[in-house]
């Protein structure tokens, strides 16, 4: 993870010419695909199977108390949080580009925007903050669901929903910590083009977590039923 950790390995011969860490992160992402595939499949298998509400897309009346529980999922709010997370991927791309191009002279007539594009600190901050923003949305979502009567023990929907989105949230949290440590290195000694691989690894992970969210948002939130 840290740029310096395996730097001494850099001069070793590799078959593909790529750094070992680049191969390993792809293997890891392949494994993570199966992890989320299992979680998402379980959610879909249990869709509509809960014996008691609240339900994701339809209101439910408790037969014993007559209390009405509204449909749980708040699609406008989650659309906003999805937008925030997707924007973090954009910031991540710009952060990587800034590290790769550090030290290169700006083209003549470059404006403030071009200057901003070269600041890895700015874009790493943006990625972290947008990631943290997504987590804040999730914290709000979880608390409001619990207030509305949906806990992880309540029904199959609650168990599979909180476990799946909780796993995703934990991945985002790990990503924010990872990016935060890159930011710390950037403040300490400045991330150089030679550190691009370290940023690239974090970026691959970050984009993967985003792509998983696109699948979750589509399958859980957008498809009613």
């Amino acid at each position, binding site marked *: *993870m*840290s740029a*310096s*950790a*395996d*730097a*001494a*390995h850099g*001069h*070793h*011969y*590799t*078959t*593909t*010419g*790529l750094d*070992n860490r680049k*191969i*390993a992160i792809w*293997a*890891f992402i*392949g*494994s*993570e695909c*199966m*992890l989320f*595939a*299992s*979680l998402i499949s*379980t959610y879909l*298998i*249990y869709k509509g*199977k*809960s*014996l008691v509400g609240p339900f994701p897309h339809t209101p439910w009346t408790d037969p014993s108390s007559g209390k009405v529980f509204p449909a749980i999922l708040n699609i406008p709010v989650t659309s906003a949080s999805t937008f925030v997370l997707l924007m973090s991927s954009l910031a991540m791309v710009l952060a990587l580009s800034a590290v790769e191009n550090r030290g290169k002279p700006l083209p003549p007539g470059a404006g403030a925007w071009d200057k901003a594009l070269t600041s890895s600190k700015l874009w790493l901050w943006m990625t972290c903050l947008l990631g943290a923003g997504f987590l804040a949305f999730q914290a709000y979502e979880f608390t409001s669901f619990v207030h509305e009567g949906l806990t*992880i*023990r*309540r*029904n*199959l929907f*609650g*168990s*599979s929903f909180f*476990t799946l989105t909780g796993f995703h949230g934990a991945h985002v949290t790990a990503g924010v910590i990872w990016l935060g440590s890159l930011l710390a290195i950037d403040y300490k000694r400045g991330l150089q083009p030679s550190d691009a691989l370290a940023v690239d690894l974090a970026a691959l992970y970050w984009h993967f977590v985003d792509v998983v969210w696109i699948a979750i948002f589509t399958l859980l939130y957008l498809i009613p039923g």
Partner: protein
Amino acid sequence: MATVAASPTYTASATPQRSRLMSWLTTTDHKVIGTLYLHTSLFFFVLGGLEALLIRWQLMRPNSVVLTADQYNQLFTMHGTTMVFLAIMPLSAAFFNYLIPLQIGARDVAFPRLNAFSYWIFLLGGVFITLPIFFWVAPDGGWFGYAPLSGRTYSPGPNMDFWVLGLQILGISSLAASFNFATTIINMRAPGMNLMRMPMFTWMSFVTQFLIILSFPVITIALVFLQFDRFFGTTFYQISAGADPLLWQHLFWIFGHPEVYILILPAFGLVSEVLPTNSRKPLFGYPVMAYSGILIGFLGFGVWAHHMFAVGMGPIADTVFGLTTMLIAIPTGVKIFNWIFTMWGGSIRFTAAMKFAIALIAMFVIGGISGITHASPPSDLQQTDTYYIVAHFHYVLFGGAILGIFAGIYHYFPKMYGRTMNETLGTWHFWLNFIAMNLTFFPMHFAGMLGMPRRIYTYDAGQGWELFNMMSTMGAFLLAPATLIFIYNFFRSKKHGEPCGPNPWDAPTLEWSIPSPPPEYNFAKIPMVTSRYPLWDLTHPERTAEIPHTQTGWTEATQQTGEHDMAPMHIETETRTAKELGIPMPSSTIKPFFVALGIVLMFSGLLFLPKGMKVPAFALMFGGTAMWVGYLYAWLTTPLEDHH
């Protein structure tokens, strides 16, 4: 680095002397880690064998009272769990560690510290899941842990807590190791060693890593659900909440069937090294051997529901899974025939390793054919949950994986310790083991066909099962002395075995071109290879005359590094240390051990939750987390190699 035996061929490294325990705890050398895996998993193999002996003792006669039903449940659960996760998988891992870098011409694995971590978390996880059997609180829900039976309602005690958490810990080990070995094989091959020149063991290991990468996350999630159900009251496997009673079975077997190939493919790889070497002929149909391994791995993901024919999935699912299962027989049969054709016309040398390798072919065919009989759903309905199935999977796992691993141990022991194992004792071990395993497992076919169910702790007389059970038990008690001979031979040969040169079997691949045991850096000059059998190119060019020879990849390699570190294929005679040669080696470190320990402590905390003991629970969870996060941070911010 700690060399494990006095080397007859090269001087030991001059690194500062530490105590032997500290040198193990801090090693990052793939060869030392490989021998640690080997010894640990042999220990667990013996333990799992003792559990089997108790099981067979109880089943020797009808209505026996050697064990209670509860003790029997714990023993058969732990026998399966131990043999699968603590014996066969790590025995394969011992060979992955020791052989992959040597076979591809690398100086270590891609991530040496991650490798040490994989071993330590395997050892600690193994201890975690094994300790409770000594207090009769061991897991008792079968190695497959079927939910909802393994949920809190039906398994209220701590028994299955140990199983759920133990398997989570062991899964971390397997996954970390699989990323490491996949990267090593993709990225650290010597110049000229393209994929179709890799030794067959490395090929089968390569396929195995992908199986682990893709199947272990599925059981991780199945276990997370079970863990959440047991500790936090979720409803994943709660039938009363509308849960699907087959969810666990599907998730478990999507992992569990690839797991079967994770167990067998490395053994297939080992005999694919032993057979050509001892037939003094190249492996017959090398490309087809590689492709059939890939195909077995690929199809292995599409057959899981053949473990579930009896649950009533309907005719379409039954047909599809029956057909895919039969399809797997094709690439497996290809392998069997290619091994036979490898021996055909060869000048065969019957070493102990060779005997085990040939026995694998015969025994695996028996297991394979009985497997075909329950690939067909109507036939399977007669056989499922009977001793016929027990016979089948012991023929493929004992007759396949274990025999292959024994072949590998006899064959590679000289490389690891610079001495050969005693061949006479090896022959005794072979014949005793061969007779005993057939005496143990063959009668189980008949007991099963006569309707004897699996997993019962006793049975009534007069059902025609007495003779077969008595035979099986006699066989099991004969396996014990066979194994003792092996263990005695193994430890005696380390000190007193016949000293051997670098290549006692006159083998064709890179690991035999360096001294035995290899120096810490493996290769003083990375060999540049031109064919699939680089060492035979030097020693027996007539055997490799028909194989294409090219210098593919040499130019790229020399451009990347300069040529000073590499040399065309040669036999290594270097006896200097890494330091003297200026070869950078990963420094030893204790950090991976403490990261592993922290993770295990964190999981242990959960054990106290169901008893309401919140203080030890949270102390262990937070303490463990702090430990592994802290040491992981220290690990990631320390360079792999000392500055020089």
